[in-house]
């Protein structure tokens, strides 16, 4: 699914990601660890397709419609409601039966009651849960998650645990986390960046 060799990313003089080798088979569950500044976020952005490596080869066997990326930022409009946000993304990702899928995800992440409230009224945990809905909306084959547990409250974290368990093996997952033990039982590979 993912194969990379000597992958490097520079921004002018700054080297954001040093040469990295990565291989994740389909259905794999890779956990990326490393100190702040080691390039975890940069690597994930490369995997998601938001940037191209400056050096090295990177092959990701999925196009934009099959990749779900959870960034540090929630990537949702503050002035729109949860439903409006997901409806927009649903349209852009060409999801069949959009309305049902949106409703289902909002329920799964316990946002159904707040679905018509603007995101600007949400707590941080709720916003992160909405971001998760956005990531999973189009049922992607490859999930690239940048510290998904960081902004979640305890309930949200439990929901995510459950979600990741059901996805492991069925979909390919690459995530970064400061708490690798939490997902240790699911992981098939570990990548430590320096």
């Amino acid at each position: 699914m993912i194969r990379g060799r000597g992958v490097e990313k520079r921004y002018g003089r700054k080297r954001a990601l040093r040469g990295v080798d990565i291989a994740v088979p389909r259905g794999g569950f890779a956990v990326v660890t490393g100190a702040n500044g080691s390039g975890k976020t940069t690597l994930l952005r490369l995997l998601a397709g938001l940037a191209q490596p400056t050096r090295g080869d990177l092959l990701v066997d999925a196009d934009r419609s099959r990749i779900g990326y959870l960034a540090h930022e929630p990537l949702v409009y503050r002035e729109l409601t949860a439903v409006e946000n997901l409806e927009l993304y649903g349209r852009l990702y060409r999801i069949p039966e959009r309305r049902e899928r949106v409703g289902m995800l909002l329920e799964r992440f316990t946002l159904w009651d707040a679905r018509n409230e603007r995101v600007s009224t949400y707590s941080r945990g709720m916003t992160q849960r909405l971001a998760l809905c956005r990531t999973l909306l189009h049922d992607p084959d490859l999930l690239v998650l940048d510290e998904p547990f960081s902004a979640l409250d305890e309930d949200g974290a439990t929901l995510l645990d459950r979600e990741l368990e059901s996805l492991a093996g069925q979909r390919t997952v690459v995530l970064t986390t400061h708490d690798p033990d939490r997902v240790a039982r699911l992981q098939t590979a570990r990548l430590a960046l320096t």
Partner: protein
Amino acid sequence: MTYLADVAALTRKDLRVELRGRDTLPAMLLFVLSTLVVFHFAIPDGAGDDAAYGLLWVAIVFTALLGLARAWVPEQEHGVLDGLVLAPCDRSAIWLGKSIATLAFLLAAQAVALPAFVLFFEPLDATALAGVLLADIGICAVGSLMSAMAAAARAREVLLPLLVLPLAIPLIVGGIGAAVSADGERFLLFLLLYDAVFAVLSWASFEYVVTE
């Protein structure tokens, strides 16, 4: 057809965000009216009637800049622009949706400003109004792209006018010509040419500005 549906969804989103936030449009309206009043005091007595048209265009361009400066703000909060770029839709649709929405705001501001101008200064005929419309299209097309470029930059409020003003000069010429010249149609054709060239250029190059 999905392309147009994407654009429509994006434009609708922009209109909705503005309606909720109500940041930009009231500011543009107030700005253009204040500017027109300032001009009354700024034009010396001896200046010809045509001078007023020149000032109208200055007011329009700076009002447009005001709107353009805020055009990508909703996408910068919470990093939404990345979310849009990640989607499988054509990136140029993002630009087109934004341009149309910005155009809508500019036209809305002008719906108040132009009658005010006629009231305060000089009449505007059909050719002049056509000129305004065509120039609006040009400014919004080019400006949306430049605004996206500037959004990633330091000192973006200063940078945007610098990037847009040289490109706006032909539009101002076209607009004024349409209003004052006896052969206004020639200027309308020129504006059409400008719009065609720069809209296509903006449409094609947006992808490169938002990806790396």
